[in-house]
């Protein structure tokens, strides 16, 4: 079930009404039933077996660990057993073809000519998301951060909560349980704010993301015909498209939850206002980054193996260099996992490694950059300098995203090379360029959307809550804004016959 469909709207409204009508004590059961229905309507029913296996393994392991606090060995085995089941399912369903493809390629390098056929297994919706979420819960129980949840339905709900399952955000048990299982009384403000947020998300996706996809798809699908300014525009357009698509999706997810009185963590915090790639990744897909830091990078850095590495590098190159090397290598592990999480393809790894490289180079060059800026007397507090930093970050991010969007690593490299040839910026005024964007009207709508997004982001960056500000205005003004947003979606949204709106990008993970 697509959350942009009419059927989801009916499903959501029905669930909301039932949620507030039933006794508060069983509200979480309503959410669980709704989540089960959503899951079954979103993919082949047999994929439910993977989800059930995941939740069951996590539930019983956590229960065992809670009961056997004195048996460290037993707890460790329970943890490893459940981790193995969950990560093995994820690995097999997502990476079998990748492993097959590359293994055969390596073997064929030695003169063999092995043929193979790919497997066509269908993974359950959101497997990449819910696996991380339930594994996080399991590890939290092992570390003593959370207590095991004795109620199996509550554990299941945590793993498959319907707004969140297909695209995140990835929640932590100790934060989410406080809001997910709470007895929520109907709040007019929650429902109002939730609906506003949903509308905002739909607008981002249907008006902006879909409009940009025309140009992006046009260039990426016929990449050999384009070079220079076309590829750069496609890269930047894709960054914007992905932001509008993914953050729009998150707005809908968080808005739906807000209507139930449930608070999910934010996944975006004005990433295009970032002044470095490092800052960017603290503002983009926040929950994934934080999860992987807490459950992958920090455990790696604290591991015995890493401590030994640290000691060795310290003797070789001194303390400061040792800290940098171990940290950067720890980050490398993190970014490799991020790449693999996105899917079994070298292009995702290429994007991750690019991001890692930019962060590392940024940090290494920091002292030298500081000296240069001081020598050039550049005022780093000035608006122009901050603007430059934001633009530089956007460009660096977009280069990495080129690999994410390209059909393969080879295509990505080809496009990157082409982007430096035949630049010809004057082509932005050509008919072909305009027609790739779908004409002048389309471009006008895109620019207006970007302007509105920037305005809203600027207000939010100053600490204002747009929704609270709007709520404090007069009735007529508020209604004009609400109707304006609604009709902007109805009129300028890219939907309808002859137009297949693309699924949310991150729903495929």
């Amino acid at each position, binding site marked *: 079930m697509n959350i942009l469909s*009419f059927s989801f709207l009916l499903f959501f409204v029905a669930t909301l009404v039932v949620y507030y009508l039933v006794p508060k004590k069983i509200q979480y059961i309503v959410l669980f039933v709704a989540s089960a229905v959503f899951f079954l309507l979103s993919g082949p029913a047999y994929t439910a077996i993977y989800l059930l296996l995941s939740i069951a393994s996590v539930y019983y392991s956590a229960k065992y660990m809670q009961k056997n606090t004195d048996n460290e060995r037993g707890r460790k085995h329970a943890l490893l057993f459940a981790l193995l089941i969950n990560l093995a399912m994820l690995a097999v369903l997502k990476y079998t073809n990748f492993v097959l493809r590359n293994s055969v390629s390596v073997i064929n390098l030695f003169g063999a000519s092995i043929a193979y056929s790919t497997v066509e297994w269908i993974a359950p919706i959101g497997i990449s998301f819910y696996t991380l979420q339930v594994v996080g819960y399991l590890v939290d129980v092992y570390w003593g951060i959370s207590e095991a949840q004795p109620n199996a339905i509550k554990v299941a709900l945590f793993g498959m909560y319907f707004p969140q399952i297909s695209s995140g955000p990835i929640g932590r048990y100790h934060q989410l349980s406080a809001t997910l299982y709470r007895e929520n009384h109907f709040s*007019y403000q929650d429902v109002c704010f939730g609906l506003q947020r949903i509308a905002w998300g739909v607008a981002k996706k249907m008006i902006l993301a879909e409009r940009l996809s025309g140009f992006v798809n046009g260039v990426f699908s016929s990449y050999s015909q384009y070079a220079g300014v076309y590829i750069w525009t496609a890269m930047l357009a894709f960054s914007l498209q992905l932001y509008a698509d993914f953050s729009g999706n998150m707005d809908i997810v968080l808005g739906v939850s807000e209507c139930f009185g449930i608070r999910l963590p934010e996944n975006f915090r004005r990433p295009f206002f970032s002044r470095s790639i490092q800052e960017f990744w603290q503002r983009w897909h926040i929950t994934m980054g934080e999860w992987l830091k807490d459950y992958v990078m920090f455990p790696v850095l604290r591991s015995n193996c890493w401590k030994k590495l640290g000691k060795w590098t310290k003797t070789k190159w001194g303390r400061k260099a040792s800290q940098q090397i171990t940290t950067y290598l720890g980050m490398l592990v993190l970014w490799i996992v991020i790449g693999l999480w996105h899917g079994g393809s070298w292009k995702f790894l290429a994007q991750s490694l690019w991001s890692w490289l930019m962060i590392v180079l940024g940090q290494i060059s920091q002292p030298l950059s500081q000296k240069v800026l001081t020598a050039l007397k550049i005022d780093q507090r000035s608006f122009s300098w901050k603007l430059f930093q934001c633009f530089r970050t956007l460009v660096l991010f977009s280069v990495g995203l080129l690999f994410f969007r390209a059909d393969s690593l080879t295509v990505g490299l080809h496009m990157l090379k082409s982007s430096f040839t035949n630049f010809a910026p004057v082509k932005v005024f050509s008919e072909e360029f305009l027609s790739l964007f779908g004409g002048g*009207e389309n471009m006008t709508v895109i620019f207006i959307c970007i302007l509105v997004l920037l305005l809203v982001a600027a207000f939010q960056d100053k600490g204002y809550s747009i929704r609270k500000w709007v709520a404090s205005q007069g*009735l007529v003004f508020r*209604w004009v804004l*609400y*109707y304006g947003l*609604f*009709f902007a979606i*109805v*009129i*300028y*949204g890219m*939907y*309808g*016959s002859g137009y297949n709106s693309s699924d949310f990008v991150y729903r495929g993970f």
Partner: protein
Amino acid sequence: MAERQSVDNIKTWKLMVRVIAFFIVGIMLFTWVSYLFRPVSPSRKNIVGYYALEENSIDTVFVGGSSIYVFWAPLMGWNEFGFASYNFAIDSMRSFLMLYLFDELLKTQTPELIVCDVRSFVKVLDEDDYEAPLRNGVDSFSYSLNRFRAIKNILPNNYSPIEYYLDIAKYHTNTSALTDETQWLYSSNRVESYNKGFSLMQKHEALENINYSDINEIGEIPASTKDNLEALLDYCDGKKLNVLFVSTPYQMPSAETKKEMNAIKQKVESRGYLFVDGIDSFDEIGLDFKTDFYDTYHINIYGAEKFTRFLGKYIAEHFSLPDRRADDAYQQWYLDYARWMINVEKTKIIIDQLIQQSIV
């Protein structure tokens, strides 16, 4: 405590009123925006022109397809017979829509006579053929239960329902409507049609003289329209409507079609209704395939004048309709007729030229 509860209750009521008002205003705006974006087609002009009429001001409604709205000229009917009539007709008419057209027309008028064109009942229905006729009808109707029922009962399963129930989903890409004066004019979905639903076509085609008036054999009503005809006759019986069934004259594709029409005529007459077959009356009407048509299915203004005179005489002889020419409430019709005649003369000049070219 009680006072606090009372204050909370008042706040809750105020909130509910506000929410309901928000939705009502929203629905009204949504309806208006939908009408704004709908294309302004000849079908829509006819339907919304009907809505703009004063209630119960029309004595005869002609209902059907383009096989009525280029055939019967209401203003000529007014001038020569005093009839207050209107063409409630859409393009690409199909039999599945007829009942809903009847329901729609009876909402605002109580005509003494309904003239129903049955040519759509010889058109075999094909599931791929539903969009245009259905949209010509329901995308002209105001939002109503009748419109909802029409879509629900007619739309094939493989069509996307939301784009029919909420037609803005289909037409929202027509953003030029936002700056188009005509679109804004039609956004109320009630716009006067001075020519009472008639279309003046500046086209002509000289056709071969193919006339199946000598075919008297009774064939079979097409299976796909038979039930629609039965339902229509039951409806007319149930509502006790005064209906004249008409098959307007055209160049039939084959003798089989004539046999089917003969079967329809037989069916209609067996239920006690009068039927006028334009093919059988072709010579009496005085139509000429060389000068009076603009394609095999439709006549031009010369043909319309002949047909209107013929049918008007028939109606005058068989039905007692009031002569509205002396009625003060219909004075505007004189002005409409004068305006229409100016356009008729302009059209005839063009058609004369086309006729000359076709002779050469």
